């Protein structure tokens, strides 16, 4: 409906008392768009060193009922996954993102852990994904969609396990956007995957008498396995070589 489009834009300009923005103003606005100027960023996480950011991330995540297991290296991840599933009385069976970043974890050392790679299907009880960044400010995970990271894993299974490398922990959402633009080598629509999911704790609702219930429609449990001594899990998503 281009007629409606022209009518609406015309009314907007009339209300603002001008025609289309003049060229010099447009240039200033383009400049504002392309510099990605930050507005006020809270000091809470920005003032911390990397170790402090990790501590804040864990504390904020646990505050919203995310559980966190910390392991020394990626070699310990399969065992941590198996231990978590057993502790929650969940079957040792999961759907895992087909992201190559997860390939060289020693999954074979846990032969009883049944792993399928692909998108989530109805009936999948447990999903496992990498993440792109972890925002210390609020204990938030930043997940990107893609051929190797189907978003259904983030939402369909009852339990979502996320592998986070310690150096994926950044202070603010703005740091996350910078990493996203750096990964794409560009900005604007071209830098964006279909979805960027910020996830802060398991699904919840307060719609009945404002009493919070976990697991409204998305996962009932969100479990993070934090790999302390490495950040290689980030590399495949950023496209950097190992």
């Amino acid at each position, binding site marked *: 409906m281009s007629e409606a489009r022209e009518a609406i834009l015309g009314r907007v*300009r009339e209300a603002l008392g001008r025609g289309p923005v003049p060229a010099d103003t447009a240039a200033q606005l383009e400049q504002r768009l392309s510099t990605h100027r930050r507005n006020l960023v809270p000091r809470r996480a920005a003032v911390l060193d990397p170790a402090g950011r990790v501590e804040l991330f864990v504390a904020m995540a646990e505050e919203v009922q995310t559980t966190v297991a910390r392991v020394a290296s990626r070699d310990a991840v399969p065992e941590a996954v198996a231990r978590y599933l057993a502790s929650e009385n969940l079957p040792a069976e999961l759907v895992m993102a087909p992201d190559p970043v997860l390939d060289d974890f020693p999954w074979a050392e846990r032969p009883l852990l049944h792993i399928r790679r692909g998108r989530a299907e109805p009936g999948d009880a447990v999903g496992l994904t990498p993440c792109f960044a972890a925002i210390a400010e609020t204990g938030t995970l930043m997940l990107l969609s893609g051929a190797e990271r189907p978003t259904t894993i983030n939402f369909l299974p009852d339990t979502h396990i996320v592998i986070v490398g310690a150096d994926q922990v950044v202070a603010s959402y703005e740091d996350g956007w910078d990493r996203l633009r750096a990964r794409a080598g560009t900005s604007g629509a071209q830098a964006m995957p279909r979805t960027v999911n910020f996830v802060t704790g398991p699904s919840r609702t307060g719609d009945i008498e404002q009493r919070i219930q976990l697991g409204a*429609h998305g996962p009932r449990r969100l479990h993070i396995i934090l790999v302390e001594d490495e950040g290689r899990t980030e590399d495949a998503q950023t496209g950097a070589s190992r």
Partner: protein
Amino acid sequence: MQPTSDTFPENARAGLANDTLQQALAMARTGFPLRRAQAVARLPEFEALREAGKAIKDHTLAHLDFYLEKWERNVIAAGGQVHWARTAEEARAIVLGLCRAVDARTVTKGKSMVAEEIGLNDHLEANGITPVETDLGEYIIQLRHEPPSHIIAPAIHLVKEQVADTFRGAHGALDPARPLTEPRQLCDEARDVLRPQFLAADVGITGANFLVAETGSSIIVTNEGNGDLTQTLPRVHIVMASLEKVVPTLEDATTLLRLLARSATGQEFSTYTTVSTGPRRAGDRDGPEQYHVVLLDNGRSKMLGSEFQPMLRCIRCAACMNHCPVYAAVGGHAYGWVYPGPMGAVLTPSLIGIEKAGHLPNASTFCGRCESVCPMKIPLPAMMRHWREREFAQRLSPPAYRSGLRLWAWIARRPALYHALAGLASRALGWAGARRGRFRSLPLAAGWTAVRDMPAPQGRSFHALWAGHQAAARRQ
């Protein structure tokens, strides 16, 4: 929906007399303000963020045409489509057309106030398409054929026993003896019932908290994850948005997101914040094949450049209604349309006309709490006053009220006369009420004294005291 804002006084009386509603509202009026205050106290920069957020919105509105065109170009670059709608009718027709193009039979919906505003569900149903609300609160009120009573907690007017009755009526295939006494059981039942609907839907419709010009993205914020299942599983994703949702950059949206959850529910950040840009990409294993945004005007461009422009800064957090003594007393349905509380009292007359919604800007004590908690610093009381002025100017208020107001204005503009009359009235009332100290009823003020006593004036007036104070100060 047909607005009933013109019967606000009757609606409000019904709300006040409804014991169940009062029970539900009692739970809301303490919880939300407390949690917001705690979240604000934890973030020293909160006040500065409010200023930053306001500046972003003011800048965007001043260049709205530029940013909308920029946003549209980027949506198209990402493979999406934008559909401009001047009116609710045009928007409904666009959505129906998109659904019919894929022979849609069922449509899942995330919570969208714009969809409520245009009455989308009724239109789809009338045309043989079944809309299924998936936000728990929206699902409950859809089953009850009720409008939302709150913009972020649509079923806040209900207690759990009413939800249980609704579910027993609607979910007839389930064991009638099942226990449904706790929110946990109700939540689980809704999850079980809605999961197959998510999987079966042909089209998913969500709202948008923000549109990002820089990237052509739409952003939704939810706690349940229903919005994500709604937009990920069907073949077609339709976003319902209005003009004022656009912001320049991801950084700008981020600043507003820091304000939104804290102001709304007192959370540091909502559980799911999802930034969507276009449809499924080559190689993607899931996600919609089509991504559409329906961009609605419906009266907003008329607010631009008027005294109501600041209302277009609203990010729909509901802090104003969560802190409003009038809303807390009468509930959201009394306001008679989709937007209740102080923001509704300003927005509703803009969208459906002051002649239908004149009661709403009058339903305020002007206590100012709404403005003091608004993350966008919208001067809500001042704008309600603008509506009262317009109502007066358009001769919409009752004749007795208007002539009374005119008489008062005539006197108030003559200070000597005003002081003489006020002094006379105060002495007369003080004398007449000296014995009891208060009045049970007063001529011409029955509306006031019907529900409370009027205290009798005592001693000297403020003006007299002040004059004495000033004179004493001069003598020193």
